[in-house]
Structure formats: structure tokens, C-alpha cells
């Protein structure tokens, strides 16, 4: 497989204006420099699916914006499908697709199919090519009933499906996804993850995905790059991260009883408050199902929540050096 994305020693800083009095701020404003990305280097092979993760303010979105030609870096070198994003932006645009979870590329008052048509013109697609492509994407994404509705009437999950269709329309070689599942419910997240993976498998699209959600990287990606404070912290196959950290699950139980004692091997108490218990489960020692069965024997459960550990915790552990 040839190289699809090459990033070498990428740096980007932002100048942030310091708060000061009106007159001083007007006449002699002072700035502080925030180093958002600090010497990041990595490469992606064609067809690879890579998660680019980190806590808030780690620099992942800034990096993806530089790779997709939105931001100019201060220094460093980037090649995307053979193009340098900030000097060959237009030529590169035909090779990449972007999905930004919190921004929409769809026209709000019009059906999504109108945006698809518009984008097909923007990307110079022939009519027959567009018609064939849109049919296959709409079928694959099971979106026939939603593309005809005005975008304002779509749910967030439906809109995200349309966003991904729009970004895949021109058969991009590289797909950048920035928080594609943000704000979605569990079912919609699952659908979106499966669709991204399926589309990548079928077209051999390279995927670079940023997310806070460990589920996104587990279900979609083969490799994970972790950054924090603008620096690369880890670059591992996803299975290493899974066996090292994502084996932990957080279970929150709401019960009728004021307090219960859930003492089991592999179960660690995080917090106990009246009628609520929060524990961490090491899935390499005991299954979530076994813990829940035991909890049901001890109490009358009213609600159960099972979560992945927060990304911040994983990063902290990686920083502590146990994985590196």
C-alpha cells in the first residue's frame, strides 16, 4: 500500500489577546501564544482507518484543519494524496472529503438531495456518474426516505447520514471526520460508525477520524494516534489500546436499596451515594454481564448505565507510561 497522508513536524500556534483596560487594549494590545500543535509527525497508508484522539484542547481538530487545507501551519510539511494542502488546495479538494460534526454542508431549507446535486456540479461530476453514485450511496446508507425531506426536518442522526453521503459523493481518496458522532444517541452512533467502515471498505478510502468517544475508534479504526497538548503521545494498533485500556467499563447502578456492597474480583468502587453506585469493571477479569447479574441478586435495580472510561483517563494512563 502506498502512502496517503504524510505529516512531518507540524506546528501551529494561535495568538490570544490578553484582557486589559480599554485604553491599553486599544493602543497597545498584548497577546499570549498558545501552541496548539507542537511537532506532530505521522503517516497513513492508503485505505487505513486511523483514529486521532485526545482530550479537549489537545490539538486534534487544529491538526485535521491543517490537513484538510483550512488552516495554514506555522511550520512543518504535509502531503495529502500527493498534494500540499495550503498551496494546492483546489486540486486537493477533489481528493478529500470532510465531515465536521458540528458544522453542516447541507442547505438548511432544501432537501439533502439538492445539496448532493449542487456538490456534484462543484466537483465537476458528469450527470451519469452522479446519478449512479448517489443511487448506490443512498441505498448503502438506507437514506432514500430522508434525502427528499428538507434538512431542517431531519433528526441529528439522519442529518449526519446525509453529511457523510455528501462528503463521499465525489469518491474521495481520503476522508477526514471531526467528531462525526457528537450529540448522537447510541443507536445512531452505531449506524454512523458501521456506515463509515463499510464505505471505507468498499472504496478503499483512507479515514482519519477525531473523536472523544472510544466507541468510534473501536468500531471504525485499526490504528489510533493519541495527542495531548499538541504533541503525539501514542501511535498504536487499536488492539493494543483495547487490551490495555478500553477493557475497563464504568457501570452506574440506580437501585431501591440505599446502599449495596458489590465486592467482586475485577470490580473497583468509584463512588457510592444513597441509591446509586458507580463501579469500574476490568473486563479481562470479569464480564459486565456477571457483575450485573450479581447486582440484580443483591438489589432491585431501577436503572443501569454502562460506559467506556473517559478519554481523559486513558490519556492520563498513557502519560503515566504504562503503555509506552
Amino acid at each position, binding site marked *: 500500500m502506498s502512502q496517503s497522508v504524510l505529516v512531518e513536524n507540524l506546528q501551529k500556534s*494561535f495568538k490570544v489577546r490578553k484582557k486589559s483596560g480599554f485604553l491599553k487594549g486599544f493602543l497597545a494590545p498584548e497577546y499570549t501564544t498558545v501552541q*496548539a500543535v507542537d511537532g506532530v509527525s505521522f503517516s497513513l497508508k492508503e485505505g487505513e482507518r486511523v483514529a486521532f484522539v485526545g482530550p*479537549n*484542547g*489537545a*490539538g*486534534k*481538530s*487544529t491538526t485535521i*484543519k491543517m490537513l*484538510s*487545507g*483550512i*488552516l495554514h501551519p506555522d511550520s512543518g510539511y504535509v502531503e495529502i494524496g500527493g498534494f500540499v*494542502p495550503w498551496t494546492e*488546495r*483546489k486540486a*486537493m*479538494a*477533489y481528493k*478529500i472529503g*470532510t465531515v*465536521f460534526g458540528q*458544522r453542516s*454542508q447541507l*442547505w438548511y*431549507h*432544501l432537501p439533502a438531495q*439538492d*445539496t448532493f*446535486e*449542487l456538490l456534484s*456540479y*462543484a*466537483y*465537476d461530476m458528469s450527470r451519469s456518474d452522479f446519478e449512479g453514485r448517489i443511487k448506490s450511496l443512498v441505498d448503502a446508507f438506507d437514506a432514500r426516505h430522508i434525502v427528499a425531506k*428538507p434538512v431542517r426536518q431531519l433528526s441529528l442522526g439522519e442529518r449526519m447520514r446525509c453529511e457523510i453521503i455528501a462528503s463521499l459523493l465525489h469518491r474521495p481518496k481520503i476522508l477526514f471526520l471531526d467528531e462525526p458522532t457528537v450529540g448522537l444517541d447510541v443507536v445512531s452512533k452505531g449506524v454512523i460508525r458501521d456506515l463509515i467502515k463499510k464505505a471505507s471498505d468498499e472504496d478503499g478510502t483512507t479515514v482519519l477520524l477525531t473523536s472523544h468517544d472510544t466507541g468510534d475508534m473501536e468500531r471504525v479504526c485499526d490504528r489510533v494516534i493519541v495527542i495531548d497538548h499538541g504533541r503525539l503521545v501514542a501511535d498504536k494498533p487499536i488492539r493494543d489500546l483495547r487490551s490495555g485500556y478500553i477493557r475497563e467499563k464504568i457501570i452506574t447502578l440506580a437501585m431501591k436499596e440505599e446502599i449495596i456492597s458489590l465486592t467482586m474480583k475485577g470490580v473497583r468502587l468509584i463512588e457510592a451515594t444513597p441509591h446509586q453506585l458507580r463501579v469500574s469493571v476490568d473486563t479481562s477479569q470479569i464480564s459486565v454481564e456477571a457483575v450485573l447479574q450479581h447486582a440484580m441478586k443483591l438489589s432491585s435495580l431501577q436503572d443501569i448505565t454502562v460506559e467506556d472510561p473517559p478519554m481523559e483517563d486513558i490519556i492520563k494512563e498513557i502519560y503515566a507510561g504504562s503503555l509506552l
Partner: protein
Amino acid sequence: MKYYHFARIAFGDHLNNRLRIFTRYLVFLLLDWVMIAMWSLIYKSGYGPASIYFRDMAWYMAFAQMMFFLSPRLFVVIDSDVRSGNIGYFLNRPIPYLWMRFAEGVGALAGNLLIYYVVSLPFIYLMIGDWPTGGWIAITSVFGGLVLASVLHLLFQIFAGLSTFWTNDAVFIYHSYQKFCLLLGGIYVPLSLYPSFIPESVLKFLPFASLVGNPVGLLFHPTWWGVLEVLALQMFWLGFVGVCLSMFYQMCLRKVEVHGG
């Protein structure tokens, strides 16, 4: 060709927002009614300009107000794109943001032209009670001039919108531009009635006159030569402002910064 499709979709999108169209149109009619009523009072009290009939003055006022309602409020869209950082997300498409937004503006403008040209005539006629002296030739000439005037107005709006890169707020730039139009464009008084210390030839040459005073002034003397003169000057300003805008846009691109962690 791709710009045509952006304009076409914007046309449909604009017409879909019926409430916005209706409320804007209502404000336009109200403004027309006030202006016509005011000039009616001036003429009835004997202070109206002798060189212009009341009905011509009333039609002039109605069309002069129309120009600002024909163009969509593009500066608001661009201002919002710049402030939210959305502009950056359009840069990785194979179509320049500047001309994409312009094409969308033209599309929405086409929707407004359809509505304002067709629907306004009977309403204005009902308010005035007579057609202009120049008849249909005068109305058609003004309509032609207003198309290019509205396109020029779009370009000025894009300027105002992009100025957000430096000012963080396009509204006060747009309002300043509007004040120049009010003062020098012939919106409330035809250019021929301006005080003599401002030469009419200078006033007519300024871009503000090409927005309102010159094209709407065709109502008084709708000659072929007059129409050609007005259109040629508008074309000049369109070219000039377009080139300046392209250069300004390049400066703006260097300032694009999308924050986000």
C-alpha cells in the same frame, strides 16, 4: 457553469422561505406608502419641484426604496461565516467561497426580482393612482437599471461582510455604506434636485448614484442613450468593484483562522 447551479439552488432556497419574503415585502410596501404620502403632502402644499410631476416623483420614490429590498442581505451571511469560522470549511471545496456566495446572492436576487417586479406594480399603482409619464418604456428602463444596481449592491455587501475580518462586526461598515448611499445616491431626492454646490456630473459618476439615482432617474427621461449611459457606468463600477473585491478577498484568506481544539 457551476456558479449557475449555486444560483439556481439559492433561488429555490430563497423562495422556500416564504415568511421572510412576506415580512420584507410588507416593510417595503409600508416604506413606499410613507414616502408617497410625504411627497403627496409636499406637492399639495405647493412646495413640490416644478420640474417633476407628482406621479413621477412618487414612482421614483417607490423604485428607489425597492433597490435595497431586491438584494438579499448577503453581508449578514458572510459576517456570520467569518465570525463563526464557517468560512474556513468552504475553503476545501473546488469552488472559491467569494464567488460561490456571490452566485448564491444572485440566485436569491433573481427570486426577489420576480416577486418585486411582478407584485409591486399593481400595489404602487393603487397607492399613486396613475402610471409614470414615461409609461411602460420608463418602467422597463428602470427595471433594467435596477438589476445591475442590485448586483453592484451585492458586491458592496460582500465587501462589508468580509470587513468582519478586521472589524469583528460588518453591521457598522454596512450602515456607513448605507449612509453614503442615502446622502449621495439619490434615495430620498432625485439627483437633479441636489444643491448646486455638488456638481450633478460628479454625483452621477459616483458608485452610489449607479445604485439608485441613475437607474431610477431613467423614469424622468427614458431615452435609449440615457439607458446605455446608465448601464455602461454600472458595468464600469461592477468591473472596478469586482476586481477590488478579488484583491480584498485574497487579503482576507490570509487572515482565515478557525479556532477549535
